[in-house]
């Protein structure tokens, strides 16, 4: 699982049937402090009612699809948690 900052919402009325009722958010991958890394932003299915600006963690690949109620869907990224805080060892590299 990886950290990301929610940077926006995606509105798509017409979408694959298995995503109906799901929210899609735009994520900027970041490190544990919330500093955006510069990696390409991605669209992810929101499973935890995240809001723009929040620090979240997400899964990629097949694990994203099986996170949804019906695993037969084409999701390749899903937000699975809201970060309260990260307790880091002093001197840890990022």
């Amino acid at each position, binding site marked *: 699982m990886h950290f990301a900052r929610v940077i926006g919402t995606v509105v798509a009325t017409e979408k694959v049937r298995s995503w109906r009722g799901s929210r899609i958010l735009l994520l900027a991958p970041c490190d*544990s402090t919330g500093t955006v890394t510069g990696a390409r932003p991605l669209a992810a299915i929101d499973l*935890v009612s995240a809001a723009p600006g929040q620090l979240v963690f997400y899964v990629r690949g097949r694990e994203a699809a099986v996170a949804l109620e019906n695993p037969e869907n084409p999701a390749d990224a899903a937000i699975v948690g809201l970060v309260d805080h990260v*307790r880091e060892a002093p001197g*840890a590299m990022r």
Partner: protein
Amino acid sequence: MFLATVVGEVVATIKHPHLRAQRLLLVQPEPTPGRPQAASVIAVDTVDAGIGDRVLVADEGNTAAQVLRMPRGPVRTVIVGVVDETDTTRPS
């Protein structure tokens, strides 16, 4: 699987039901000479690892399901061992 060091603990109250009661640790993959440092990832702890421990991390969905004794869910990265030591013999 890869070797990593536990560098932190992630606290998240709101998370996918599959992750409920799981301890989430931040692991930093060990550097490979000549390559940029890989980013730290969040892993589910199954061996009671602690910050500073050198650990063995599996990064595959089916492995995670088996280790957690759960059906497949949104977990791919799990800590499956605490490393006592490694011994590398470099070809000369």
